[in-house]
């Protein structure tokens, strides 16, 4: 037997967890303790409905490419147990096995940011680190990707058969777009998630909010993780600000937009939050169609932000909405997630009159100073997603309200329906943060 990730022993039987997520059991079967349900190792949970004291929450669809299905095993005298992986259950993450950090050896900035993350972000110092040497451009050619990005990751997996990290972080200067020649280029995150290795579909996120100009924004982001971590979740890998009393309680959904009358993603997000038990008094929603042509119909001030959505460049906010003080945040507004409805917002260079994720993480973003009002996580697109290919706002904000980890919020909002349209999702931020 090879590629064993974990082993458990009973009185006269044993159970092993293999790195493809399957289980092997042997020995005494007098109580059926070695009977592995045939369907379990390949079961994909597609819909989970959770009931809370406030009634049922919306059904959350899990990612279609879940990480390893079986995560934990245990054995008693005459019984065996296995825990199926579900990001809805926050099992104790072992970063020595479950977190892989990837940086680009051709960029000193990439190396520095990765190293800074290892040494300053709480509880990750023992994570796995992989340096790869590919282009540090935003766009990578297929041959470079296969040889110098996916290839080294595949080699790392082969030489570490007892590790199948469910979480991968790509640092600054790792390319984000794969030039396949298709009209809409897929993201490197998507490619790694879906096709890097058999039976491996990690939640890939990026800490790349600097583009190519220095490392200040990335370092400031990591400093925020360290600060909120030590002040609100000391000693915890999964950092929750609200659990420690941080006041990120309000949600702002600005659906005011130019010309997509029938589509109101902010409204679906609002409904998801209400179903999740969030007070309607904490949700601020606006929808003016068509856009009124000025800022008067938009949400321009926000306090104690937990989530923010707007139509960015498709409205009178214009493409510079994040940094031109059109929108100003106040109070405790440094631990929220955001999404905008616009193409190309995950590219390094703003395009076509649209917004850009780098500006969301800038020091003066959303009326702040010294990064005071930047988000802790964001979803964006590295190419045209089409209207239906954008992230599902209800799932994205609904999961964040339900205090799922950010990696899951981002990836889970990329539903089967989205994937018919586009593969250009980019999830930006630390995977182990919750509201």
């Amino acid at each position, binding site marked *: 037997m090879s590629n064993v990730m974990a082993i458990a022993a009973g009185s006269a039987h044993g159970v092993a967890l293999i790195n493809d997520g399957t289980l092997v059991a042997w020995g005494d079967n007098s109580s059926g303790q070695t009977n592995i349900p045939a369907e379990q190792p390949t079961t994909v949970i597609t819909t989970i409905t959770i009931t809370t004291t406030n009634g049922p929450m919306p059904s959350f669809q899990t990612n279609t490419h879940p990480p390893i299905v079986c995560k934990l095993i245990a054995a008693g005298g005459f019984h065996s147990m296995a825990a199926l992986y579900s990001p809805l259950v926050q099992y104790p993450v072992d970063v020595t096995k479950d977190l892989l950090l990837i940086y680009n050896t051709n960029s000193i900035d990439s190396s520095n940011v990765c190293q800074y993350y290892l040494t300053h972000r709480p509880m990750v110092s023992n994570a796995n680190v992989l340096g790869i040497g590919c282009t540090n451009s935003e766009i990578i050619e297929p041959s470079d990707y296969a040889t110098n990005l996916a290839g080294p990751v595949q080699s790392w997996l082969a030489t570490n058969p007892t590790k199948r990290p469910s979480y991968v972080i790509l640092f600054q200067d790792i390319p984000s777009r794969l030039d396949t020649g298709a009209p809409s280029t897929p993201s490197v995150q998507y490619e790694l998630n879906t096709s890097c290795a058999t039976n491996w579909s990690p939640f890939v996120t990026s800490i790349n909010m600097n583009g190519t100009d220095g490392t200040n924004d990335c370092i400031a982001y990591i400093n925020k993780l360290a600060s909120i971590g030590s002040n609100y979740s000391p000693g915890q890998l999964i950092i929750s600000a609200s659990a420690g009393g941080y006041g990120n309680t309000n949600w702002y959904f600005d659906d005011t937009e130019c*010309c997509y009358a*029938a*589509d109101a993603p902010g409204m679906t997000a609002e409904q998801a939050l209400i179903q999740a038990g969030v007070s309607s008094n904490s949700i601020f929603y606006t929808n003016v169609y068509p856009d009124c042509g000025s800022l008067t119909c938009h949400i321009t001030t926000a306090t104690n932000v937990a989530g923010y959505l707007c139509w960015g460049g498709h409205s009178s906010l214009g493409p510079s909405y994040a940094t031109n003080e059109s929108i100003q945040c106040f109070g405790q507004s440094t631990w929220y997630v955001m999404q905008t409805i616009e*193409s190309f917002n995950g590219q390094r260079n703003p395009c*076509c009159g649209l917004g850009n994720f780098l500006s969301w993480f800038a020091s003066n973003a959303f009326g702040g100073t010294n990064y005071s009002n930047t988000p802790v996580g964001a979803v964006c697109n590295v190419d045209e997603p089409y*209207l239906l290919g954008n992230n599902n706002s209800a799932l994205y904000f609904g999961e964040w309200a339900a205090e799922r980890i950010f990696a899951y919020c981002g990836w889970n909002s990329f539903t089967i329906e989205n994937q018919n349209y586009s593969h250009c999702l980019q999830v930006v931020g630390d995977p182990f943060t919750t509201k």
Partner: protein
Amino acid sequence: MKLSIKFTTIILTLTFLAFSQSISAQDTFENLDFESANVSGHSPGNLVPISDALPGWSAYFTSGTTTYPQTQVVYDGISLGGAVISVIDDNAAAFSPLQGNYSAFLFGGGYGVNEVLASASISQTGSVPSGTESLLFDAYVYGAPFTVALGGQTINMTPLQAFQNYTEYGGNIPSSLAGQIETLSFTEPPATGAQPSMFELDDISFSTNAVTPEPSIVALTAIGGLLFGARKGFARR
């Protein structure tokens, strides 16, 4: 020998049929209402060969002097800023066909890996019916104004009648083009500001009547122009 003659006859017949078929295809504009789309087997969001999605039409993006011909278009793809050519049905988000089951949808915007700003066009070559005086179609437009060209000449299109979700446009064509084989093209340029640029198109037809905009439309346009001029005048002061 007889066999050879028969074989030659068959070949000539097939050649003639193919030739006449080709002439016929070139001769008559087709699929002007976009109802010939065949997207069966494709999911919304997928790329579909243009011969299935927009039979009879060619599609291309243009940036500066460079043209990028397209062999596929998107089924139900509603752009959020990219240059997109799409055929839509009732499965599209936020929009539906203007008439019947299908409409064409052109979006100007970012195109290609480097996201150059590009216009989106469809075109078709055919015979302009004799006696044609005008071109009519239904459209929903947002952002940059579309352009229509026939035989390389821009046709000045005028809104004729406004309906709830679309406007009927008409434009008079030069009499010299009637009865000629010409190329008809529809183009949506890229956005010039933050707004997207979209042009949904349906029910194209040639008419033997010249176009005369309804007085109300003309009046509204004139009043709008006067108000705009007055506003600019005030602004200058």
